């Protein structure tokens, strides 16, 4: 379809890639502001006081995971094991640091390593053997959670045992922005640089945009895809440590069944599920929007039982809007090529 349209497109019709992307992200930002303002008007406590920092703290984990998942989705893959990896890393990290009496920095290091190893295994299977990522990571979802259960048994770590530094980390903030969210911003900043300003990152866009062509022009598909998975796993590991810090309790069911939430955040953020399109910033904004929406529903006192239905509806609207936007640009192209047709004949 697009190919055909392309055949008739003229040079004088310009879509500026930057403005287009900017439009997508500014769109999310607008909705974000709109929802926040509206909710604050009805319930002033939503943003004021500690409301905002709560919101950012709540977003830290899903935001971190969205930043992690984005390069994988851009390369036309998916990682469904992301929530299992987070949960496992949370428990394993707790186990290791409690055992050794370690503090914050080693905790993050351990968590990142656990996640990186999981990501590397996924990466080898998907990028190395070229197995479908949906199936591989669905399998990994089960395996990691099973190992987590088996390893954790009935154990649980609570604030009592966990290092107090780590517990405090989630409470500390700079100008109302929690440290943990600052960490996410740092990771996102690195992600932006990686995905926008290195060949490595650009290759991922190319791979997701046109896989056969990526092979033809000689992109190192294996190493690029592999490291996208390692990155995703690493951030899942870091998110696991955040979990410890925020919720001060961990057992083997930590972050159970949350993988689709992360996918949802990324999709709302304008990252195309079929690869090639989207930005880290968008995904992070998507995560924030998702949490703001959940928070708004709660703060507005929307009946508990309707929240999930509303979430589903919002996601449908988000993907619907994407579709309408792409359709609108198509019809615009059609109109122009018709004008041109008349000019020719």
């Amino acid at each position: 379809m697009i190919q055909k349209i392309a055949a008739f497109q003229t040079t004088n019709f310009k879509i500026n890639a930057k403005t287009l992307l900017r439009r997508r992200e500014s769109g999310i930002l607008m909705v974000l502001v709109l929802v926040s303002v509206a909710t604050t008007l009805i319930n002033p406590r939503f943003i004021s006081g500690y409301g905002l920092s709560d919101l950012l703290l709540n977003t830290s984990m899903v935001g971190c995971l969205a930043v992690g998942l984005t390069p994988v989705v851009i390369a036309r893959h998916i990682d469904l094991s992301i929530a299992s990896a987070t949960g496992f890393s949370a428990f394993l990290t707790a186990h290791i640091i409690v055992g050794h009496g370690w503090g914050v920095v080693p905790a993050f290091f351990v968590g990142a390593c656990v996640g990186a190893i999981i990501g590397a295994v996924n990466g080898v299977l998907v990028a190395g053997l070229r197995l479908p990522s949906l199936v591989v990571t669905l399998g990994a979802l089960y395996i990691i959670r099973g190992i987590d259960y088996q390893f954790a048994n009935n154990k649980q770590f609570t604030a009592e045992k966990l290092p107090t530094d780590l517990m405090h980390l989630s409470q500390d903030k700079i100008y109302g922005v929690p440290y943990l969210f600052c960490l996410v911003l740092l990771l996102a900043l690195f992600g932006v640089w990686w995905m926008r300003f290195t060949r490595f990152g650009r290759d991922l866009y190319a791979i997701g945009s046109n896989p056969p062509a990526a092979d033809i022009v000689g992109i190192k598909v294996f190493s690029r895809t592999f490291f996208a998975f390692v990155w995703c796993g690493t951030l899942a590991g870091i998110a696991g440590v955040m979990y410890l810090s925020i919720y001060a309790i961990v057992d083997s069911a930590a972050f159970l069944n949350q993988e689709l939430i992360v996918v949802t955040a990324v999709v709302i953020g304008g990252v195309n599920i079929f690869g090639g399109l989207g930005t880290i910033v968008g995904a992070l904004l998507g995560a924030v929007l998702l949490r703001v929406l959940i928070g708004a529903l709660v703060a507005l006192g929307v009946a508990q039982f309707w929240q999930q239905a509303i979430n589903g509806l919002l996601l449908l609207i988000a993907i619907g809007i994407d579709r309408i936007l792409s359709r609108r640009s198509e019809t615009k192209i059609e109109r122009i090529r018709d004008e041109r047709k008349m000019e020719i004949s």
Partner: protein
Amino acid sequence: MKISAKISVAVLAIATLVAIPLSSGASAAPKYKAGLKIAMISKIGNIPYFDFAMSGATKACKEIKCTVKYFGPNEGTAAAQIKLINAVVQQGYNGIMISANDKDALVPALKNAMKRGVAVTSWDSDVANAGRNIFVNQASYDGVATAMLDSVVSILGAGKKGDVGILSSTPDATNQNAWIASMAKQIKANAKYSGINVVATVYGNDDPEKSTTETQGLLQSNPTIKVIVAPTSVGIISAAQYVVAHEELKGKVIVTGLGLPTSMAKYIKDGTAQAALWNVPDIGYMSVYAVADIASKLVKTPVKAGSSFAGGTLGSRKAFIGDNGPEIILGPGIIFTPENVDSFKF
């Protein structure tokens, strides 16, 4: 009741001294079937609560020379428990003690077990009467509700008015719903609690993340809340942690509810929370005796009001017919205080 318990403890102690090579259970109720195999099925296999109960069960089993094995499904659903019940029945277990994820869903599987001669007690969380021989209740629903209400009154100050929010587990949790209903009933009926104004009930699904979000929403939409009641050992930690994490809330919002002393000690000591619970190992302990009594036909089924169950060191309990068939009650709950909290190892 109290006196009789004390007496039986005394009797037991003497019996233990007298019959050293014999187990105390044997002397108190001498005819437990040899080689009893008991399966303890929990709601879910990943929380320490059930581990502590299991420690009590193991202790009881040592006393009466039976074996007990722990089965924890890896998802907290009735469907997962059904599979375990089926497997246990086929492995030739004589007794099942189960903390049910669902009141009705397990009934067919449990009925099937009883049909094949397996003794079934429910404990911690009941199933419908048709699905078990007896329910070993940790404390009566009303009793638990009263304990929590008393705690709220102690926070608010007697006779004072105050807004209260409830953070429950899942919307369909049997125990939590019964406790919440009982609290509502008592607030209406008892002048002592008339100052308590429950403004909202939210559900944290026993998930730290959701519980935290819901606590946050609860306080945002109801800034006047002074007490959060969380009748769930997972939710109460999340609520307490949320309050601890916010300087603004310290002292203004107090959390109370049901929680394990080991995981709540920190919050109880710094004044963020109060908590009550029954003695968790004891309920496992008592349940083993109950199921062994029935499996060894020391108590005839169907259990009638007044039938006596041996309770090892805890003393015997008399069955009565509750709203949902025969049950025995372990005893009043324990209120944890900064002083006593460290003495409980569960």
